[in-house]
């Protein structure tokens, strides 16, 4: 089993710099968990005696539930800490929280935080293995891994593909992790959206920028839609939801520009009628529900992998 690179060996903080020989075996393991999940034959003792804390400084239902399920299926003791109930609201600093968690002898710490780099800071101070469950606008590695697994199951490869990531790329940690993973696997990523949401500075090796949806979707294998936050309108980045949908919403007419049977993906939760038309979201090309299923499998694989390098429970 390959290890995560460098300081990421013990943690999963991001996908930047990860190589195909690290990604593929992890996805293989996730694939096996996906099959076990379906047959309901998951071994319950993989994480027996391990403690997993979901430390969410930012509200999330989907990701937290997915990690909780992944931990519980493998037999870990899972505790959810959300900021609303924690001492962070009482003024505790991030590093004091880390010291507290150390004293509790936690094995796995799943962290979501609104600040880019917060999980990395925690990782320096805790004994536990840290899994980044989304930090600010930086990375959301398990989301990109589950997207990759979903793509690989349908298209058989992660190399040589054209993947369009559409919408609010600028603020998206999902987009960044996907860019790192997919370009690292030898695919081309197209970033599609208005210039206020898709900055030209993101252009790099393997990444192309499009400000026109029709051009950006031409012949792509995968269309990955991003959620448009309401606050993007209140902060002036785009004028209105109707204008956004008119120029950057994914509807059937635009989807036809992509390859036949191109996959339609969305990290959820969707804004129907804003970034994606319901007919497309519910079409046979949509793999959005499967993404959620693969999310649990990928997180099981990640938790499994990280605990293998830890002292026995």
């Amino acid at each position, binding site marked *: 089993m390959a290890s995560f690179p460098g300081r990421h060996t013990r943690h999963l903080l991001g996908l930047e710099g990860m190589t195909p020989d690290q990604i593929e075996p992890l996805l293989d393991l996730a694939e096996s968990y996906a099959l076990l999940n379906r047959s309901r034959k998951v071994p319950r003792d993989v994480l027996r005696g391990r403690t997993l804390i979901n430390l969410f400084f930012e509200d999330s239902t989907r990701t937290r539930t997915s990690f909780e399920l992944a931990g519980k299926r493998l037999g870990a003791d899972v505790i959810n800490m959300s900021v609303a109930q924690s001492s962070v609201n009482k003024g505790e600093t991030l590093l004091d929280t880390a010291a507290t968690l150390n004293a509790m002898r936690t094995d796995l710490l799943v962290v979501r935080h609104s600040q880019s780099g917060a999980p990395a800071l925690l990782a320096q101070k805790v004994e536990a293995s840290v899994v980044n469950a989304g930090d600010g606008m930086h990375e959301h590695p398990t989301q990109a891994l589950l997207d990759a697994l979903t793509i690989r199951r349908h298209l058989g490869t992660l190399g040589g593909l054209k993947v369009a990531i559409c919408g609010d790329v600028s603020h998206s940690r999902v987009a960044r992790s996907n860019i790192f993973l997919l370009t690292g696997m030898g695919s081309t990523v197209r970033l599609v959206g*208005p*210039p*206020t949401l898709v900055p*030209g500075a993101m252009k790099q090796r393997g990444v192309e920028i499009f*400000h*026109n949806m029709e051009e950006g979707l031409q012949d792509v294998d995968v269309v990955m839609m991003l959620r448009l936050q309401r606050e993007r309108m209140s902060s*002036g*980045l*785009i*004028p*209105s939801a*109707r*204008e956004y949908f*008119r*120029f950057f919403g994914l509807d059937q007419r635009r989807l036809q520009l992509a390859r036949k049977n191109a996959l339609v993906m969305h990290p959820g939760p969707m804004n129907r009628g804003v970034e994606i038309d319901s007919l497309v979201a519910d079409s046979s090309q949509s793999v959005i529900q499967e993404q959620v299923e693969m999310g649990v499998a990928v997180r099981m694989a990640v938790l499994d992998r990280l605990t293998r390098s830890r002292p026995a429970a």
Partner: protein
Amino acid sequence: MNTLLFENVRLIDPASGLDQPGRLLVRDGVIAGTDKAGAEGTPENATVIDGKNAVLCPGLVDMRVEIGEPGYEYRETVSSAARAASAGGITTLAVLPTCKPAIDNPALVRMLRTRGEETGAITILPYGALTKGCEGKELAEIGLLHEAGAVAFTDGARALDPARLMRLALSYASGFGAMIVQHPEEPSLAGSGCATAGALATRLGLPGIPAAAEAIMIARDIRLAELTGGRLHFAHVSTGEGVALIRQAKERGLNVTCDTAPPYFDLNENTIGDFRTYAKFSPPLRSEDDRLAICAALADGTIDAIGSDHLPRDADDKRLPFAQAATGGTGLVTLLGVTLARVHDGTLTLPQALSLLTHRPAQLLGAECGTLAVGAAADLCLFDPEQSWLVEAGKLPGRAQNTPFDGRPLEGRVLGTWKAGRRVYEAGQA
């Protein structure tokens, strides 16, 4: 259908560089051909117009006009503006969105275009509001407005102030290839000023607007255009400092353009004399040095176009204490004549002046007009560059009479204007 032949005219078409005596043939509202003087033969059933050696050029394209409709019909309506435009040789008007409601909705863009067509005399190219309600707070629906036919985006004589919003506007509009038009004036520095800062304003006891207010906004926005790659145009530049910055930006290869208006190259601050509110403008009339700098920038090509900056106001808007009076003047009827004053004094050549009034503004607005090319709509202006006339407020075609040029003798008179081959103005027939 109908065939028109213009004979004995000096054809000037800045788009192609044509400047020669000749003839021009129009068939069914479209330019069918030109030939040199002395050519023989008249097509059958052609109506022949003897130009008597006057200049025939493309109908003028006025890139900055406020009309007042909808919302301020007491000042001007589309049809009264069309009468004034035709008398001024103008066949295409880019119309500001600062009416009531502001043109911040695609339906209003289409409405204005249609109102122009209904006159049969003018094409209206609507500017879209840059921000909702032209209030300077949130971006308007630039994509939808662009799609509906808005040619560029501006909040009129209100500068888009927050640097962040200007950055977003330039960036967002660039995705649609759309141009942002800025009123170059730093609002907090302009404050409640109503005349250019200097000896005159000080003597009259009027709060002043320094020329630096223009330079600061131009410098800032050039930097933001560079940052975003957005398409930026400065309207009615009025100072030497301002044009110097734009000249530099152009030399550096940035895609920044500007226009000015006749008051800024024909009048200076002294025109406000004893509180003459008809000479109150925004930006204010500047010093003589600034006026000369604007003339030089017209001559060297730094300034890309001349727009009339027509702002209809009625007497009640103007007959107020100077600081409280409305800014702006009418400009449609006098656009050509005042511009020709710069030809008569040797600042510009005639083709240069006409380029600033036809081909260049059309290019900036991405409009297919302002040319004598075969196949183009026969929007034409026939004028005598020498014939003189007197500007008389109260007797100008159109409703609004608030001209700053009242009593000014001008050389250069429009003899006739044609819109798509149809005569819409004939001198002496108004």
